[in-house]
C-alpha cells in the first residue's frame, strides 16, 4: 500500500545546532505513527518540515506522492496540522474559527456547515460551539484545536503533543478521538513525550533523541528487539536449605538470572509469565511458600533508557 507520508533523510540545522539529523519516516493509510522523544528531541522541527513550514537543509518529504514545499498547496491540502500550542483566535467562537479555517481549505456552504457539526461532535464541543475560545477550559481549547486540524478530512493528520497540560479526562477523550481517526483510515502522525500515550494509540513508534531517529517499530518489536528483560521480585516464607534449593532450581532455567534477597529472590527473565508459573511450581516442590510477587514488564521508558542512558520524561 502506498504510504501517505514518506520522508527520507531529513536534516535541519539552526546555526551550529543540528536539530534534525537524517530522519526517515513512513506512515501508511490508517496507521497511527508515534514519534516519541523528550522535549527538544527534534519532534516539532520534523513536523514543521513535513507540513512545509520549514525547509529542510537536505532530505525530502512526500505526501500522497507529491513533494512538500512551502508553495506546494495541493500536497499541503492533504495535511491537517494540530500544533502543540493552541492555534486559534481566542476572541472568536469555535464555530467561527472552524468556518474561517474551513474556508481557507476550500470548504463552503452546507458541506462546511455539516462538517463543522461532525467535528464538533467528535471532540465533544457541539454545545459550546458558539462560545468564544477564550472562555474555554484548557482541555476544551485542546479539543477545539484538534477539531480545526481534522475539519477538512485530511489524509494525513499531524498532531504535535496534543495532550500537553490537559486534565486526565480531556486527555482520555483526545486519545479516544485520535484512535478513532486511525481506525477510519486516516494516517496519523502523533508526537509525544508521554510513553503511555504512544503505547496506547500508536501502531508503530519511532524513538527520536537529539535529532536522530534511534529506533523504530511496534511496541513489541522495540521491547523484544533490544532484549530488554522483565523483572520479577518474589517474596518467600521460610528459609534455609529449602529456599536455597528453590533459588538454585530457578537459576538453572534457561534465560533466567537469580539474585538472592533476604525475603526471597529477584528474577530477571525474558518471559515473566512463564517464569512466574515455574517459580510457583518449584516452590511447591521445595515446600517454599510464596507470599508476594511483583512483576515489572519492560516498557518504552525502559527502551529509551537503555538506548540513550537517560529518562524519557524530564518533568
Amino acid at each position, binding site marked *: 500500500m502506498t504510504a501517505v507520508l514518506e520522508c527520507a533523510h531529513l536534516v535541519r540545522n539552526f546555526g551550529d545546532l543540528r536539530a534534525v539529523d537524517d530522519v526517515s519516516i513512513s506512515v501508511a493509510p490508517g496507521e497511527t505513527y508515534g514519534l516519541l522523544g523528550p522535549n527538544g528531541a527534534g519532534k516539532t522541527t520534523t513536523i*514543521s518540515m513535513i*507540513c*512545509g*513550514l*520549514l*525547509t529542510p537543509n537536505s532530505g525530502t518529504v512526500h505526501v500522497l506522492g507529491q513533494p512538500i514545499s*512551502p*508553495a506546494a*498547496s*495541493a500536497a*499541503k*491540502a492533504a*495535511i491537517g*496540522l494540530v*500544533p502543540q*500550542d*493552541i*492555534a*486559534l*483566535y481566542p*476572541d*472568536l467562537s469555535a464555530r467561527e474559527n472552524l468556518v*474561517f*479555517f474551513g*474556508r*481557507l*481549505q*476550500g*470548504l463552503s456552504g452546507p458541506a462546511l456547515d455539516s462538517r463543522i457539526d461532525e467535528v464538533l461532535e467528535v471532540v465533544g464541543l457541539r454545545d459550546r460551539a458558539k462560545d468564544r475560545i477564550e472562555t474555554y477550559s484548557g482541555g476544551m481549547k485542546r479539543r477545539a484545536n484538534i477539531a*480545526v486540524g481534522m475539519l*477538512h478530512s485530511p489524509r494525513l493528520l499531524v498532531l504535535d503533543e496534543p495532550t500537553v497540560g490537559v486534565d486526565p479526562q480531556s486527555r482520555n477523550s483526545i486519545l479516544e478521538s485520535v484512535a478513532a481517526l486511525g481506525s477510519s483510515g486516516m494516517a496519523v502522525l502523533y508526537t509525544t513525550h508521554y510513553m503511555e500515550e504512544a503505547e496506547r494509540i500508536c501502531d508503530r513508534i519511532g524513538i527520536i533523541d537529539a535529532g536522530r531517529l534511534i529506533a523504530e517499530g511496534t511496541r513489541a518489536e522495540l521491547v523484544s528487539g533490544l532484549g530488554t528483560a522483565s523483572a520479577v521480585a518474589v517474596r518467600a516464607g521460610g528459609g534455609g536449605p529449602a529456599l536455597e534449593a528453590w533459588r538454585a532450581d530457578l537459576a538453572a532455567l534457561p534465560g533466567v538470572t537469580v539474585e538472592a534477597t533476604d525475603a526471597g529472590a529477584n528474577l530477571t527473565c525474558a518471559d515473566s509469565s512463564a517464569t512466574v508459573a515455574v517459580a510457583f511450581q518449584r516452590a511447591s516442590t521445595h515446600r517454599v511458600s510464596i507470599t508476594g510477587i511483583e512483576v515489572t514488564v519492560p516498557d518504552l521508558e525502559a527502551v529509551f533508557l537503555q538506548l540513550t542512558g537517560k529518562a524519557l520524561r524530564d518533568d
Partner: protein
Amino acid sequence: MRAPSVLTQAWLVAGLDLKRRLRDRSVLIQVVLAPVLLALIIGGAFSGGSGSLKANIWLADADNSPTSAAMVAGIAGQSEAGGGGVVFIAKPGLDAAAARQAVDSNQADAAVVIPVGFTDAVEAGKAAEVDVIGDAGDEIVAGVATSIAEALANRTQTQRVATGTTLAAAAQLGVGVDPRVVVAAAGSTPGAITVRDSRFENKYSLMAFFAPGMAMIFLFFVMGAAARSLLTERREGTLARMLAGPTSPSGILLGKAAGVLALGLTSLLAVWAITALGFRVDWGDPLGVLLVITSAVIAIAGISLIVTGLARTESQSQQLTVVLALVLAILGGSFVYTNAGFLAAVRPFTPNGQALMAFTDLAAGNASAADVLPAVLILLGFGAVTGGIGLVAIRKGLAR
C-alpha cells in the same frame, strides 16, 4: 475540494481581520472617537471654544501718516461682517509699547505695529519694518498677524517700485507730482492688502485643520496595530496553521495589507463624515478630499508594513510605531503648524505633512482635486515604496 485562489484567501484573511478589529471597542475609539474628540478639544482651545478662529488683531498705526492710515483702513476692511472670525481694529497713533500692553492684558490677541517713520522710509526707498506682537502660546493668531505683516511688507515693496516708476515717468513728462499723493494712492487701492496665507483666513474652521491632523496620528496607531496582527498571529500559531494548509504566503500578505488599508480608510472616512455632518466642517472639494484620504492611508499603510517587516516582536513594532507617529506628527505639523523655520521646511517630506497641506488647501477653498494631485502622487509613491519594502521584509520572515 479545491484550494481557494490567492485573491479569495486574501479576502478571507482581510475579512477576518476587519471583523476582529471592529468587534474590539478600543479600536473603535481609536478609529473614530479619539480623533474627533481631540480635534474638538484642540480646535476649541485654539479658537476659544468654537470651531472657527476668533481673534482681535489691533493695527497700531504709530506712523499715523496718510499712507499708513490707508494701509490700515485697507486691512480693517477685511474683518468679517458681524464681528465673527478675525477682527482687525485700527488704532491710529498707538505705539509699540502700548500695543504690547494691550496684548499682555488680553485686550488684543495680537498686534501689527506700523512704526514711526514707516512712510518716510518707503518714500526714501529704504527698507520699512512692520512689527508683530503676539502671544507665544497662541501661534495661530500670531501666524495671522505675521501674515498681515508679510502682506504689508510685500505691498510696500510693490508700492516702492510703483511709486518710483510713477515719479520717474512724471519727471520725464515734465509733470509735477507730490510723492506723498502717489504713495497714499497706491496704499489705498481697494483690495490691495489681503491675508496672504489662506490657511488662516477668517472663515477657515480650525476643525478642518485639526480633524485630519488628529485622525492621521491615530491612523498610525490603528494601522500599526492592524499590521502588527501578523506578528501576533505568528506568536499565537495561527499563521503557521494557515501556512501549513493550502494558503499561500501571498494570499495572507495581501489579505493583511487589505485589512490595514480598509481600517485606515474607515477611520479617515468616519472622521470626515462625523465632522462634516455633525459639526458642519467643510473639508473642501469632496473628490479632492477622497483622493487625499486614500493616498494618505496608502502612505501610512506602507510605513506600518515596513515597521512590521523590520520588527521581530510585537513590542518592538509597537514602540517603533509610537516613536514614528509622534515624530512624524511633529514634523508634519499635526500639532503645530508653522509657516517658517525648520518644521515648515521638513513638512513636505513627511507623508502626514503632505496630506495635511493638501487637506488645509482643500478646506481653505483654495484647491480642487486637480490641485492636490501632486500631493496625492507623492503620497502614493511613498506608500508604494515603503509598502513594497515592508512586504518583501515580511515575506522574507515568513520563509524559514
